[in-house]
């Protein structure tokens, strides 16, 4: 029984090891750029790029090896002088809008942009009705 449990436990430990590569991470996967301004730019971009492996995380948050490779790619490109929005477009060309967390101005997102205005005017309307109705003291 104990042996069975132990081997089960060991198996659970072994699976993630098998699923990952043995190679060390890419040079800039977990290392910041030396220039703080460039690192800030890279970090801001990485936080809005979605991880292909852990699809609810940004590549800045994900430990997947592919996310590490993407971080390194982004940092190296920014160090070489590329603009973050250019890198975002390059990624969107490959993976679609899906890969970016930053909402675009595409027509499908117009309701999203309109929502604050609609909700605010709805609230104002509601407030006006209530204020009007209150009897004067």
């Amino acid at each position, binding site marked *: 029984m104990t042996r069975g449990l132990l081997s089960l436990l060991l198996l659970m430990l072994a699976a993630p090891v098998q699923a990952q590569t043995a190679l060390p991470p890419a040079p800039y996967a977990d290392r910041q750029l030396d220039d703080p301004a460039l690192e800030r730019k890279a970090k801001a971009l990485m936080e809005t790029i979605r991880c292909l492996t852990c*699809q609810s995380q940004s590549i800045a948050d994900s430990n997947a090896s592919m996310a590490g490779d993407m971080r390194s790619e982004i940092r190296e490109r920014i160090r070489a002088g590329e603009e973050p929005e250019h890198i975002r477009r390059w990624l969107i060309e490959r993976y679609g809008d899906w890969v970016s967390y930053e909402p675009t101005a595409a027509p499908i997102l117009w309701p999203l942009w309109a929502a604050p205005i609609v909700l605010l005017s709805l609230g104002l309307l509601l407030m006006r009705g209530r204020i009007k109705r209150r009897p004067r003291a």
Partner: protein
Amino acid sequence: MRKLLIWLPLVLFLGFLALFASGLFKPDDRVITSKLIGQALPAFTLPAAASDRPALASTQLADGKPRLLNIFASWCIPCAAEAPQLMALKQAGVEIDAIAIRDARPDVDAFLARNGNPYSRIGLDARSGVQIALGSSGVPETFVIDGKGRIAYQHIGDIRADDVPMLLQRLKDAQ
């Protein structure tokens, strides 16, 4: 009007409930396809990933003959599972080139010795750079490349036995 309005929160609540329930029961599709299908392969040059196979460059994939470009890795279990199907495709006369992702030559050699080697050329993409440039989201994936070096089709996940005729048809269509 007020009487109707009082039901609005409940209706909204039920609407959300229905939305979440449908999300729970609908099979989840997390496959992210490459947006480069129909376009030319991005240019790349990769070093050799295995001891007994030459390196791979994108220019070699546009020699007039459609082929498969298999994205694999020695550390990937489904890649070992699809090896017999790749072998069958090779025996059917298909040219298969490959890119090994985040790999090392001794590991690739051991993987090929264990699972067979259906590849003509294998490039080593140690930092997934070419994988990202291809819009590929994992291993294994298999691209059908037409004779002009354009991506005709992307197969995501391991090739099962019943995918083989479909891939042969795709290769024929890419002629």
